[in-house]
């Protein structure tokens, strides 16, 4: 199965890169784009064939390495 893991900064954590992107968008004339936040996406293939088992493994990866709970949240999508 495939896992797609989206890691985002928690609310309240300063995101200067998001702010810089927001400024650049405004400079290009994209009005009304607010609260821009930058995160990251990690994709992988997993050997598990069961969705629940794949999700459990991806969650363990997030907790042990992929996300830092002090500043980040993560969301996992399991794709066939």
């Amino acid at each position, binding site marked *: 199965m495939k896992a797609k893991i989206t890691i985002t900064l928690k609310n309240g954590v*300063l995101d*200067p*890169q998001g702010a810089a992107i927001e400024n650049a968008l405004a400079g290009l004339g994209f009005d009304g784009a607010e609260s821009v936040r930058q995160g990251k996406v990690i994709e992988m293939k997993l050997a598990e064939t069961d969705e629940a088992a794949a999700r459990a493994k991806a969650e363990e990866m997030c907790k042990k390495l992929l996300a830092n709970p002090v500043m980040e949240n993560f969301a996992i999508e399991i794709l066939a």
Partner: protein
Amino acid sequence: MKSAVIVFPASNCDRDIAVALEQATGKKPAMVWHGETDLPDADFYALPGGFSYGDYLRAGAMAAKSPILRAVIDKAKSGAPLIGVCNGFQILCETGLLPGVLLRNANLNFVCRTVTLKVENTQSMFTSGYSKGDYVNFPVAHHDGNYFADDETLDRLEGEGRVSLRYVDNPNGSARNIAGLISDGGNVMGLMPHPERVISPLLGGADGAAFFKNIVEAVS
């Protein structure tokens, strides 16, 4: 006093801190590669600055999971003195030995200049040679030095006197101007500025020489 420096791929202040420790202790420190699993017996351990593993994923994240870090964490938990400078501080936060995290600098700039720091706490072995309110000048050189923790953690750190160094003129957006922290056990310190880069007037300053000499005296 015996010391050891952990070396990661893309550490770049490992030799600087080795020279600083040799100057302070009179002995060359052991250099320990990140892939090792056992630490040599030493009285003092150091995680150097640099960009371990290219700062991939998050600064310090990969190094915190490297084989040698399991041994380092065990040593620190048993009370061995351990310092992390710059990337070493980021690694200490990623291991959980110190709370919080170092975010991208608030102004997005890589800051590389000498900063003035105020010594806030003199209870630990790392700063016992100073008086509260002393000032030292150390250089900073980082892109991810913006210390962040939630307010509850920050209040606890302040209440327990664990903020050891504070920026006089905050270069990176760090919460409460925090430049250096002590662990709850008092034997682990992380700081973003580089005392190991100013150990001789020839290098632009000698405040770092006194910093390491004080630690050696406190540990010995």
